[in-house]
């Protein structure tokens, strides 16, 4: 190794360059992906789980209330 410092300096430029290029492309792809997904699958995880569960809950709540009322009425 004649000139290790010059050599390692080149590695540094190459290494940091590739690391940043990699992450920068990744960031761009991820931002684009987020837009695409928001466009074609809008709020998908929310609707089925959130919507369905609240609907189910309302029905359940109604059933439970009815049952309690019924029970109370029988008790009287």
């Amino acid at each position, binding site marked *: *190794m004649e*000139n*290790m*410092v010059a*050599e*390692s*300096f080149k*590695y*540094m430029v*190459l*290494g*940091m360059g*590739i*690391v*940043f*290029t*990699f*992450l*920068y*492309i*990744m*960031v761009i*792809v*991820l*931002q684009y*992906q*987020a837009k695409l*997904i*928001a466009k074609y*699958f809008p709020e*998908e*995880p929310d609707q089925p789980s959130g919507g369905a569960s609240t609907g189910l809950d309302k029905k359940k709540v109604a059933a439970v209330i009815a049952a309690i009322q019924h029970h109370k009425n029988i008790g009287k």
Partner: protein
Amino acid sequence: MKKSIIAGLLLFFALFAGQATASEHAAAPSHVSATAQHTEEAEVHDKSIWELLKSFYKTTGIYAFTTPQDGVVNGEGEEVSSFHQTWGRIIMIGITLLLFYLAIAKGFEPLLLIPIGFGGLLANIPMANMTGDHGFLGVIYNAGIANEFFPLLIFMGVGAMTDFGPMLANPKTALLGGAAQFGIFGTLVGAAALSQFTPLFDFSLQDCAAISIIGGADGPTSIFIATKLAPDLLGAIAVAAYSYMALVPVIQPPIMKALTSKEERMIVMKQQRKVHKLEKLFLPLIVLGLSILLLPESTPLIGAFTFGNFAKESGVVDRLSDTMQNALINIVTILLGLGVGSKLAAEKFLVGDTLGILILGLVAFAVGTAAGVLMAKLMNKFSDEPINPLIGAAGVSAVPMAARVVNKVGMESKPGNILLMHAMGPNVSGVIGSAVAAGVLISIFN
């Protein structure tokens, strides 16, 4: 109390042995007229007590620790100097006890320091030769460390444990994970300069690269690179990498505070958006795809990592992802720790290079932290959304310790300012960044 009992027993033994021989010597003249057979029997008898005891003593650890021999070889067939046979081993056993203390009393990375420490303890036992090809530790080392297998399995488990949500919510912060990799490459230049211009160190470029990867603060990556580029330095590099990861809460805060003003530390970041499930599912494929296109050399590490993450996010193989996160990573941690510990044998660890590695590793770590913080400051200047510069420090991998430290330092300046999730973004991208940096180093030296 126990000591005195043992000492007493030893004394008794010694006296008994002495008396037995003395009485036989005294009895010998009266047996002059006895048959030849009888004398022979007496000789055999004589040997069985005194000589046997003596030859047994020569196989004890006490003898091996106190009387160095010429021509003692270690597992790899290299001769071990007399210092490394005696004081060296004792010092190393002391060091392993220190590792136990740090792990148990101080809670520093106990999952790794305990197996590594115990491996080191076993590796320094004289005569047992556990680090040899047929020794317990040697078998483990050859099975998974010499061929870089265990670090990849660990990486798989880490992938299965990592949640990329915070990074996906604010992808720009991923760049901070890149800036922190300057710790690796900056130290590479520094180590090369010190080796070339000063008589302090004498590392080759490969050695420098393997040492500076400690700055990535990523244990498995450090082991992976060290085995590839500088297997002789593996023990010191692994111990340095894991010790500094454990010391994140000690090393990082002073650097973070020195480089930021109080106002900057008090910056409150916007709450993160909700991340779609599909984004998380595609992320490992995107990362792997990029590394296939740009840097196939890094795909062993990134491939294992993304496989683990994909199994987790796919949501249909919970059994597999659960095994990777728990059972598998635990088994591999045990084996990896013991295997790395085998490199703590005195003749490998107590050499001049180790001190250089410990110092350069610390520098790499500090430089990485500083680079992350400075980059975050820069981004804060040019970004529309406020960015607290502290989160840059989490760009060194060390998941999730570095992010927790950021959170703590942030809370000190402004109670209630929770930076944990914002710091997790650079933190997990730091894992990708250091894997990419590792891939670059491998591609350079291949």
